[in-house]
């Protein structure tokens, strides 16, 4: 729209592309009612003392006070931060590296691509169970290595409260990096052959071409990948349930699980709403500056 020449000749701007606009009304209405409406409803009820059933009995910030005074919530936030940062960086790095390797015109590329993408076809529950078995000290990796003769070998992340979140991270990355690889691969295929030729003529080493030329050109692909990974991080739930159910103790709790447990098991809707509102706020805090840079910047440039 920004490229269209002056609007003075077209009187009714609102009526332009009328059919398209009418066609999108249902979707817009759905988005408004379901997403915005329900979000507002949740936020409003987070200020009440609703228990099993929602009721409008306002108690101010009590639910939030309690939330931030609860150890389990604080542990959940800390876990999400660790999981988030590590999973963001590692998934991107692993995904891109795999894509770059596949892009070097290897033989059996299709086979490799299928194998690497395969974990993504599994649900988180299945992934979680598989990794629960692999990491189980009595049947999994630890036992296999011990059977080879290294009897003092210890690797039981799911049973060690200090590192349990990394046990979950392993499963998360295994599941998620295949998809990122495919997206990156598509991005790499979109890079013009001539750029590679030019870089070769100039004598720039391959790795440097990637870092200085290719990656900056793939910015939109990275943004897509980033959004996909980030949304997966905030809602991580089933993986934890399948692998550890939050244990040992409360060492691998995550915010989404807190929300579920408070709303349904503890029959305290308002507390669950307060926690989910906090999740929304943190997403907004990250999203708004990013959206501003991404979309606001373009208009000016």
């Amino acid at each position, binding site marked *: 729209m920004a490229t269209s020449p002056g609007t003075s000749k077209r009187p009714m701007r609102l009526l332009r592309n009328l059919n398209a606009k009418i066609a999108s009304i249902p979707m817009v209405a759905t988005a408004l009612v379901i997403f915005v409406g329900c979000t507002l409803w949740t936020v409003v009820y987070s200020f009440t003392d609703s*228990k*099993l*059933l929602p009721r409008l009995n306002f108690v101010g910030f009590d639910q939030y006070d*309690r939330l931030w005074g*609860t*150890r*389990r919530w604080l542990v959940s936030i800390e876990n999400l931060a660790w999981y988030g940062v590590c999973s963001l960086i590692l998934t991107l790095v692993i995904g891109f590296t795999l894509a770059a390797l596949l892009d070097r015109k290897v033989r059996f590329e299709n086979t490799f691509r299928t194998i690497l993408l395969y974990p993504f076809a599994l649900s988180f529950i299945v992934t979680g169970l598989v990794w629960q078995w692999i990491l189980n000290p009595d049947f999994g990796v630890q036992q296999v290595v011990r059977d080879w003769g290294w009897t003092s070998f210890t690797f039981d992340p799911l*049973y060690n*409260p200090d590192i349990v979140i990394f046990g979950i991270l392993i499963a998360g990355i295994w599941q998620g990096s295949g998809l990122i690889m495919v997206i990156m691969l598509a991005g790499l295929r979109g890079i013009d052959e001539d750029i590679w030729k030019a870089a070769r003529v100039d004598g720039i080493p391959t790795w440097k071409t990637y870092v200085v030329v290719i990656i900056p050109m793939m910015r939109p692909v990275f943004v897509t990948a980033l959004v996909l990974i980030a949304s997966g991080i905030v809602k991580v739930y089933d993986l934890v349930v399948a692998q550890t*159910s*939050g*244990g*040992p*103790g*409360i*060492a691998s709790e995550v915010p989404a699980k807190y929300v579920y*447990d*408070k709303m*349904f*098991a*503890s*029959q*305290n809707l308002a*507390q669950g709403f307060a926690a989910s509102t906090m999740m929304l706020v943190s997403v907004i805090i990250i999203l708004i500056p990013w959206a501003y840079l991404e979309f606001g910047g373009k208009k000016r440039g």
Partner: protein
Amino acid sequence: MKTFSKLLTTAAFLTAGVAHATELEVTHWWTSGGEAAAVTEFANAFNATGNTWVDGAIAGSGGTARPIIISRILGGDPMGATQLNHGRQAEELIEAGLMLDLTDIATEGDWANVVNPTSLLDACTLDGKIYCVPVNIHSWQWIWLSNKAFADAGVDTPTNWDEFVAAAPALEEAGKVPLAMGQQPWQSNGAFGVIAVAIGGEDLWNKINVDKDAEAAAGPEMAKVFEAAVTAREMAANSRVQDWNQATNMVITGEAGGQIMGDWAQGEFQIAGQTAGEEYECLPGLGVNEVISTGGDAFYFPKSDDPDVTAAQKELAKLMISQEVQVAFNLKKGSLPVRGDIDLSAANDCMKKGLEILAAGNVMVSGDEVLSADTQGQIEDLMVEFWNDPSYSAADAQAAYAAIIADAD
């Protein structure tokens, strides 16, 4: 067209059949061996009346099943009947008018006089109306001990908690886990409750849980309870099973010395062909304070517009509390019957101990009856952390516990 009319006829026949014998879906979370055997008694008795019991077992535990049950009722897809622990869990569902009022059949069956202790019926009562059928009494306050484990370790089977603690090093030396503990939150919470009643006594328990006295919760008597819980935590350090029946199995096989678990554990021993006094021992109140709580399971009947369903629901309610079914069910389940007027001579030693305590009136209310699900959830979270984190000191845990009691509603 011909096939279509055939289909219609079949459908008409089917509907006629359904109207005749009403199907009731009954949801519950009784899935371990002993529990499943007990629930079959209900099903058989109900099927014998010409109706059909559609089993809706939900695997996991109450913590998993309750949210599913409640969201089905709230979501307008109610089952015919459902298990819940009586007490405050269904309070709001009743207030919202979603549950069937059973007052008429309760009066007809004279429940007020046959149900013993009466607190069970009180827990089903809201504003003078009765909304649930208590089916059994569950008491948490038991410890189950494996004679084999203690014999292997070369010590006598203890007769109280202190002796058990003293025997722990010998058990460990023999390669046993002194105390078997599952990792599910309700187990951590329950075991703590048992220790609290046994070590702190009933008065202290009532002060904290009924009167919500935060000072008592922070006091020196409760400190002793937390110290004992730390000892128990050390004894259970090597127990890595998840489900309660896996932990019970450790006691059955003699891998573990003992387990703090409610009387439903009995069903597992029975299925394994073991006899109380021979292969295993049971100590009510950890052998220190012989008192049992009288919480338990109850069945609620979500309201239905269909009069046939309502009739079948009432029939099932009557059946569940009838003398024959109570005997058959509770013998399999290992729990105590809710009627004081039936003969349980077939009961084993442990159940008899329980019946004696019940007859002597050494009963207390259960946590489900006095604490809201929310408060229980908070205590559960605390206990899960406490049992699993060896660096969580007794004093810190007690402070957190007192804070929860201060806020309890």
